[in-house]
C-alpha cells in the first residue's frame, strides 16, 4: 500500500508531462479548420518569417541552370522591382517572362486560373463547390481548351511561346522548397501545380468574362414583364440627348455596312412570370462578382498639339483593386522586340505599353457580346432535346469532374446547345408545367476560339500606327477601345473585337431559343468597326462610353455595359480646352488623370438647391446648401461638400426607382437617364409608370433626401468622433485594396482617396485606376511614366508588395526605366539572375 502511494505522484507527473507534450505537438501539426498547422507556420525555419524578401542591391548575379532554354536569359530587376528580361530569341524571352512573373506572382497566377477553371474546391474543399459548378457550367474550361487547340493548329509558333512561358513558370516552381513557398501556400497547406499553356488560355477567358460577362438580360426581361415595351425603351434608352460618343460624326471615318445587321422580326420576347437569377435564390450571386463600374480612360494627342512636338498617349484602366495588383510591369528585349509596359500575370507579352516606335492603351468597349436564350427542353429523354426551328434537336452532354479537397470527386453534366452551354440552372418562379422545361443557354463571344496572344505579340513588335492597326485586325475578346500613337506623330483609335452584327436593341432582353431568327448571324467586319486615324482636331479619347451615335452601329447598344457618358464628356472637354488653338504639355495631360470634377453635380446641384431651399425644416441647414452653391464640384478627399452631394444623390436616386425596380431582380434606369429626366423642362417626359413618384412630387422628395443625407452624415461623424459636423469625402468613402483571397492583414484599408466612378480619376471604394501610364517621345526616344496601386512583388513580406500605393494616392507617376538592349544602369539594378540552359 505504501509502495503504491509513493509511486503515484511521479507516475502521475510522467503521464501528465507526456500527455501535455503529445497534445501540444499534435495540435501544432494539425490543420484546424482554416488555421494552418501552427508548428510549421510559426517555425522560424520554415514558417512565415522565411517569406521576408530582401530588396537590397546585390553585387553578384545569381546564376541558374534550367531546362527548356535554347540560349541564355538575363533578368535584371530595377530598383522599382521591375524585371528587364533579355533573351537571344522569342521563345527564351517568353521563358524569362514566365520565370520572372512566377517569381513575384506565383500564388496569384495559380488562384486566378483555378477560379476560372472551377477548381477552387481542390484547394478550399466543399465550401467552394457551388462556385466551381457555376464556373464549369459557364464553360470557361471547355472554351480555354478549344482556344488552345485552335492556337496549336493555326499558329504553332505562338503555341511554342505559351509552352516556353509555361516552362519558365515551372523552372521557378521547381526551384521552390517548402521554406521558400509563398506564404499563401503555407497558410492553405497547398503546393503549386505545374503551369501549362491551358492556364494561359484560362486566364484569357477570365479577363474576357470580367470585362464582358453580365446577367442584365434577365433583369431587363423582368422589366418587360412589369412595364410596357414603350416605357422600358423610354427608361432605358440606347442614346442620351447630351451624351458624347467616343467618335463624333466629324471624327468617324468609316460607316458600318448595313448588310451585316440582323433585323429580327421581334426581339421583345416575353417570358411568363418574374425571373430570378439563380435557382430562385436571387441574393446568392454564385458566379464571380463583376464590379459595376469596370471602365477605363485613354486618350492620345498628336504631336502638332504638343509643345515638344511628339504625340502623348495616356491610359488608366479601372478595375477591381487587389493586392497583388492585376498588372505586372516588365520590359522584354530580344532581337525582334524591345517593349515595356504592363503584363497580366499568367499571359505572355505586354498588354498595355510602348516600344521605341509606338505606344498603345486600352479601355473596355462595354458592347454587349453576351446573350441569354430561353431554351425549351424535353428532359424526359436520356440526352435532353431542345426545340428550335419547329423541331427537337439533340443536345450534347459534357461530363465535368470536380475534385474536392478531402472528399470524393463529383461529376456534373453540362448541357451544350448550338448556341452555347446551358450555363445556369435558372428557373421561372411560375412553373412551366408539362414535360417541357425552360433552361437558359448563353451565347458569348468568349466561347469562340481566338488568338489574342498573336495580336499582342504583333503589337509589341509594331513600328507604326499602321502596323498596330494591322495587328488588331485579328483581335476578338474582350472588345476594347485601342488608342494608338507612333513617334512620327500619327495617332489612331479603333474599337477592336468580335461584335455580333445586329440591329439596335437586339439582345437587350432574353432571346427566344426556339426561334432561329434570334440566332446570331455573324460578326462586324474589322473595317466596319468604329475607328479614326489622325483626326484634324488632334486628339482621340475613350472612357467606356458608346463608340458612336451612328444608328447603323446597332450593336453599339444593348446591355448598358457602357458607363456614364459624363466621364468621357469631361475628358473631351478638357482635351479641347488644352489643345484648342494652343499646344499643351505632358504635365497637363498627366494632371488630367487626377481630375475629380463631378459633372453630374455641376448639372444637378443648382436644381436641387432650388427645390430644397424653400422646404428646409431646419434653418441651420441653409448654410450647408450655401456651401454647396459655392462648391467647385471637385470630389477632393477633404471635401465635405462631396460627401453631402454623394449621399444626397444616392438618396434621391434610390427613392425615385427603388419601389419600381427592386433589387436584385431589376436594373434601375441609369443615373444618366435619371439626370436627363430631372433636368427636363417638359413634364411630359417624366415616366408615368407604376410605383415611380410623379414629377410634381420630386422637389419634396429631393428636399427629404437632403435632410436624410445630413442626418446620416452627422450620425457618421458622431459615431466616428470626427470632431466636425460632417465627414470629409475620403473619410466617408475611402478606398480599400484587399488581398486577392481576402486575407485580413494582407490588404490595405481606408486609403484617403477622392474622385468617384464619374470623375476622370475614377476611384471608388475598392475599384479605380489599376495602372496609370503616360508615354511620349523626346528626341525620338521613348519617355514614359507609370504607377499602379500595389507593388511588383506578390509576396506580402516584400517591401515591393505595396510600395507604389503612396505615390498612386497622391496622383504622382514614376518615371519608367526603359532601357535599350537590356543594358540597365548598374545604379538602377537591384539584382540580376542569369538563366542558362542545362546541357
Amino acid at each position, binding site marked *: 500500500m505504501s509502495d503504491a502511494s509513493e509511486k503515484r505522484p511521479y507516475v502521475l507527473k510522467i503521464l501528465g508531462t507526456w500527455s501535455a507534450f503529445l497534445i501540444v505537438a499534435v495540435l501544432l501539426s494539425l490543420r484546424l479548420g482554416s488555421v494552418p498547422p501552427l508548428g510549421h507556420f510559426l517555425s*522560424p*525555419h520554415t514558417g512565415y518569417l522565411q517569406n521576408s*524578401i530582401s530588396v537590397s542591391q546585390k553585387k553578384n548575379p545569381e546564376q541558374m541552370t534550367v531546362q527548356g532554354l535554347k540560349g541564355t536569359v538575363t533578368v535584371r530587376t530595377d530598383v522599382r522591382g521591375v524585371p528587364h528580361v533579355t533573351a537571344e530569341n522569342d521563345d527564351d524571352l517568353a521563358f524569362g517572362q514566365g520565370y520572372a512573373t512566377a517569381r513575384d506572382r506565383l500564388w496569384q497566377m495559380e488562384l486566378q486560373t483555378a477560379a476560372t477553371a472551377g477548381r477552387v474546391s481542390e484547394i478550399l474543399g466543399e465550401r467552394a463547390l457551388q462556385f466551381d459548378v457555376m464556373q464549369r457550367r459557364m464553360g470557361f474550361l471547355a472554351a480555354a481548351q478549344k482556344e488552345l487547340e485552335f492556337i496549336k493548329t493555326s499558329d504553332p509558333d505562338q503555341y511554342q511561346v505559351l509552352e516556353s512561358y509555361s516552362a519558365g513558370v515551372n523552372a521557378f516552381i521547381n526551384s521552390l522548397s517548402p521554406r521558400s513557398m509563398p506564404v499563401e501556400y503555407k497558410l492553405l497547406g497547398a503546393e503549386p501545380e505545374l503551369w501549362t499553356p491551358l492556364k494561359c488560355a484560362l486566364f484569357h477567358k477570365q479577363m474576357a468574362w470580367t470585362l464582358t460577362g453580365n446577367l442584365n438580360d434577365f433583369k431587363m426581361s423582368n422589366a418587360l414583364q412589369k412595364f410596357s415595351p414603350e416605357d422600358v425603351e423610354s427608361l432605358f434608352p440606347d442614346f442620351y440627348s447630351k451624351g458624347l460618343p467616343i467618335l463624333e460624326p466629324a471624327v468617324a471615318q468609316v460607316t458600318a455596312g448595313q448588310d451585316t445587321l440582323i433585323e429580327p422580326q421581334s426581339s421583345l420576347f416575353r417570358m411568363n412570370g418574374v425571373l430570378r437569377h439563380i435557382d430562385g435564390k436571387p441574393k446568392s450571386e454564385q458566379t464571380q462578382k463583376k464590379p459595376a463600374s469596370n471602365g477605363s480612360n485613354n486618350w492620345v494627342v498628336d504631336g502638332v498639339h504638343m509643345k515638344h512636338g511628339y504625340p502623348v498617349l495616356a491610359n488608366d484602366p479601372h478595375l477591381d483593386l487587389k493586392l497583388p495588383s492585376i498588372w505586372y510591369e516588365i520590359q522584354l528585349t530580344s532581337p525582334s522586340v524591345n517593349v515595356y509596359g504592363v503584363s497580366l500575370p499568367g499571359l505572355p507579352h505586354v498588354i498595355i505599353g510602348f516600344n521605341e516606335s509606338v505606344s498603345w492603351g486600352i479601355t473596355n468597349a462595354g458592347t454587349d457580346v453576351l446573350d441569354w436564350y430561353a431554351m425549351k427542353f424535353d428532359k424526359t429523354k436520356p440526352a435532353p432535346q431542345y426545340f428550335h426551328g419547329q423541331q427537337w434537336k439533340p443536345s450534347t452532354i459534357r461530363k465535368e469532374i470536380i475534385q474536392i479537397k478531402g472528399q470524393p470527386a463529383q461529376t456534373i453534366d453540362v448541357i451544350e446547345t448550338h448556341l452555347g452551354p446551358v450555363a445556369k440552372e435558372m428557373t421561372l418562379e411560375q412553373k412551366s408545367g408539362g414535360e417541357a422545361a425552360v433552361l437558359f443557354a448563353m451565347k458569348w463571344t468568349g466561347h469562340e476560339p481566338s488568338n489574342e496572344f498573336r495580336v499582342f505579340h504583333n503589337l509589341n513588335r509594331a513600328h507604326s500606327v499602321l502596323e498596330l492597326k494591322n495587328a488588331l485586325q485579328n483581335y476578338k475578346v474582350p472588345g476594347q477601345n485601342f488608342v494608338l500613337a507612333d513617334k512620327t506623330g500619327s495617332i489612331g483609335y479603333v474599337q477592336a473585337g468580335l461584335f455580333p452584327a445586329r440591329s439596335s436593341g437586339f439582345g437587350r432582353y432574353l432571346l427566344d431559343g426556339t426561334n432561329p431568327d434570334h440566332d446570331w448571324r455573324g460578326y462586324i467586319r474589322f473595317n466596319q468597326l468604329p475607328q479614326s486615324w489622325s483626326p484634324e482636331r488632334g486628339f482621340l479619347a475613350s472612357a467606356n462610353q458608346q463608340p458612336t451615335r451612328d444608328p447603323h452601329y446597332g450593336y453599339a447598344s444593348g446591355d448598358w455595359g457602357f458607363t456614364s457618358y459624363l466621364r468621357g464628356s469631361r475628358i473631351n472637354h478638357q482635351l479641347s480646352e488644352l489643345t484648342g488653338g494652343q499646344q499643351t504639355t505632358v504635365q497637363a495631360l498627366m494632371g488630367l488623370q487626377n481630375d475629380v470634377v463631378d459633372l453630374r453635380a455641376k448639372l444637378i446641384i443648382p436644381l436641387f438647391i432650388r427645390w430644397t431651399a424653400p422646404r428646409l425644416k431646419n434653418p441651420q441647414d441653409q448654410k450647408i446648401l450655401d456651401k454647396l452653391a459655392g462648391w467647385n464640384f471637385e470630389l477632393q478627399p477633404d471635401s465635405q461638400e462631396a460627401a453631402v452631394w454623394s449621399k444626397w444623390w444616392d438618396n434621391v436616386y434610390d427613392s425615385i426607382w427603388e419601389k419600381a425596380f427592386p433589387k436584385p431582380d431589376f436594373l434601375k434606369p441609369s443615373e444618366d437617364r435619371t439626370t436627363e429626366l430631372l433636368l427636363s423642362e417638359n413634364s411630359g417626359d417624366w415616366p408615368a409608370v407604376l410605383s415611380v413618384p410623379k414629377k410634381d412630387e420630386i422637389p419634396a422628395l429631393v428636399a427629404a433626401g437632403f435632410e436624410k443625407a445630413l442626418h446620416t452624415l452627422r450620425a457618421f461623424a458622431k459615431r466616428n468622433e470626427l470632431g466636425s459636423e460632417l465627414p470629409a469625402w475620403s473619410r466617408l468613402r475611402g478606398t480599400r485594396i484587399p488581398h486577392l483571397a481576402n486575407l485580413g492583414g494582407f490588404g490595405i484599408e481606408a486609403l484617403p482617396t477622392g474622385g468617384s466612378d464619374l470623375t476622370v480619376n475614377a476611384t471608388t471604394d475598392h475599384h479605380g485606376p489599376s495602372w496609370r501610364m503616360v508615354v511620349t517621345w523626346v528626341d525620338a526616344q521613348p519617355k514614359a511614366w507609370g504607377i499602379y496601386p500595389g507593388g511588383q512583388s506578390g509576396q*506580402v513580406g516584400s517591401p515591393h508588395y505595396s510600395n507604389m500605393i503612396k505615390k498612386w494616392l497622391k496622383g504622382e507617376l514614376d518615371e519608367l526605366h526603359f532601357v535599350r538592349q537590356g543594358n540597365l544602369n548598374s545604379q538602377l539594378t537591384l539584382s540580376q539572375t542569369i538563366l542558362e540552359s542545362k546541357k
Partner: protein
Amino acid sequence: MKDLILEFLWILLAVLTLLLIPWWQAVLCAAMTAPLMLRLTVWGFKRRLVLMFLIFSIFLLILHAARPEIAKAVSGLLKIPHYSLLAFLSAGTFALLTALAGETALWVRFSFRRAKMNWKNKSSI
C-alpha cells in the same frame, strides 16, 4: 553553477536548432539532449519554461523586427494588434513545447533509473 550553465546551453541549443531545422526535428533534438544536460530536480519545469520563453522571445523579437513586412501582415491576419505579440506567441508556443519535450525526456530517464534501482533492490533480496 555547472547545472546553471548546462541549463542555459540547452536552451541556446534549442533556439539554434529551431532556427536551423524544421520545428519537429528541433523538438526531437531538445528531447534527446535534455537527459545529457539537465537534471530533473535542480531547476524544475516552471522556471525552465519561463527562462526559455524569455530567451525565445528575445530571439524572435529580433527576427520579427528585422522582417517587419511579413510580421505586420501575419499579425493583421491573426488580428494581433502588434507584431511583437506575434513574436511572444511564437516564443510561448515553442518554449512550451520544447520545455515539455525536455521534461518528458527527464521523466523517462528518471523512470528507467527508478526501475533499475527497484530491480537491483529486488535482486539483492
